[in-house]
């Protein structure tokens, strides 16, 4: 019986390895491969590898339903639609404006606004309507509680940062700054609504708990990332310091200087028109 149990456990681990972790690794590997090569076929292969990885991750709730990690694949499948709508919409709005290159038709602006609006309402509907990502009836995907507060909190902080940057560094950017303050205020309002109004599946107290956890998470990520960059800089610095100084060469001789002067003189001036 023990052998059967351990063999089943091993199978689950292998399944998780092949159907979740290898696809996860395929995404950065494919992107790296597509960006590091100049050949068109290799670029396409890299993109295909990354795309296949994303598809396999999204399929993980069906391919490996027993693995807790597949909840992340479930979340990716749930949010990829609204996030792509928002990002594509912003792209259409941006490039249908006054850009010197790659300008899109003016009509794309309305389509962009519509796409961004629908994507945003879709995400909001995941909190306050029936669209909440659920692993099974009434069981909310735990990673939704990570994604949504982190996204709202950081959007609010970054938009506020961007608004003040436009005001202080940019010249005559008041209108743009106001737009960014509006985005920050909107995200802040959604956070405050989440802290006070229950959704059909998510209570305000649950959201409050996860909001401060998201804050702790972001501070932790910032500290960990800065530490690793510091260690990386130290490693490079100590290696460069250990290298012997480069060999110095003797100064140019008189004849070499004369030759250089003659070459420069022959390239200076020009014929009168």
């Amino acid at each position, binding site marked *: 019986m023990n052998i059967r149990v351990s063999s089943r456990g091993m199978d689950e681990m292998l399944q998780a390895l092949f159907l979740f972790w290898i696809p*996860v690794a395929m995404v950065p590997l494919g992107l790296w491969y597509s960006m590091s090569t100049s050949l068109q076929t290799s670029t396409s292969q890299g993109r295909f590898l990354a795309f296949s990885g994303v598809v396999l991750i999204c399929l993980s709730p069906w391919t490996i339903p027993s693995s*807790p*990690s597949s*909840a*992340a694949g479930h*979340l990716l499948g749930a949010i990829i639609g609204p*996030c792509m709508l*928002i*990002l594509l919409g*912003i*792209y259409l709005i*941006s*490039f249908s*404006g*006054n850009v010197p290159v790659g300008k899109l038709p003016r009509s794309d602006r309305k389509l962009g606004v519509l796409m961004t609006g629908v994507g945003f309402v879709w995400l909001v509907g995941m909190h306050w309507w029936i669209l909440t990502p659920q692993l099974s009836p009434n069981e909310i995907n735990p*990673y939704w509680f*990570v*994604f949504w507060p*982190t*996204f709202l*909190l*950081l*959007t*609010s*902080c*970054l*938009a*506020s940062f*961007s*608004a003040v*940057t*436009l005001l202080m560094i940019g010249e005559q*950017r008041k*209108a*743009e700054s106001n737009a*960014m303050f509006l*985005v920050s205020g909107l995200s*802040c309002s959604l*956070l*405050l609504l989440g*802290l006070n109004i229950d959704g059909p599946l998510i209570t305000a*107290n649950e959201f*409050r*708990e996860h909001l401060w*956890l998201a804050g702790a*998470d*972001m*501070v*932790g*990520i910032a500290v*960990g*990332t800065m530490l*690793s*960059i510091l*260690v990386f800089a130290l*490693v*490079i610095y*100590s*290696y460069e310091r*250990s290298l012997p100084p480069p060999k110095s060469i003797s100064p140019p001789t008189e004849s070499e200087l004369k030759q250089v002067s003659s070459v420069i003189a022959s390239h200076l001036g020009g014929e009168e028109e």
Partner: protein
Amino acid sequence: MKETNLAFTWRMMLLAFLLPPLLILAIDITCFGSFKGSDSSVSFTRFSNATLTAYTLCSLFLMGNLFFYGESRNRPLAPLVGMLLATALGVLATVFFIGQGPMLLEDNGSVRAQAIYNVVHMFVSTGAIFVAISVVLGVTFSAITSQKPRSNFELEEE
């Protein structure tokens, strides 16, 4: 820009970044009378796990970047070994601290389950961070491009 003005600008920008969470905290405390909903030990556990995981994964990413650094330096082994040790230190610290007991264990039963949960949690958080950065950069850019084009050659035109 003068140095004092530059320092003032940076302070203002930092304050602007921190303003929304401080505002929400202030409103929450004002409305409820106290700072509720956050258990400091749970927050500390999340902070510690996030720090250890971010350090380890970012070290791994930077170790990959040594490939490009090595191209200009005749492929030295010393920095690679250094970053490998730094990454291994992160993995060992994670395993050691999670293994100490309930301090860093969230709702997971074993060190391996917690470590895997940390990595998946980091992917989700990083995804949210990337989406937020993309949205803010995109909205800033679209706000700039939606204005009328400016002429930079007013003096020449006159």
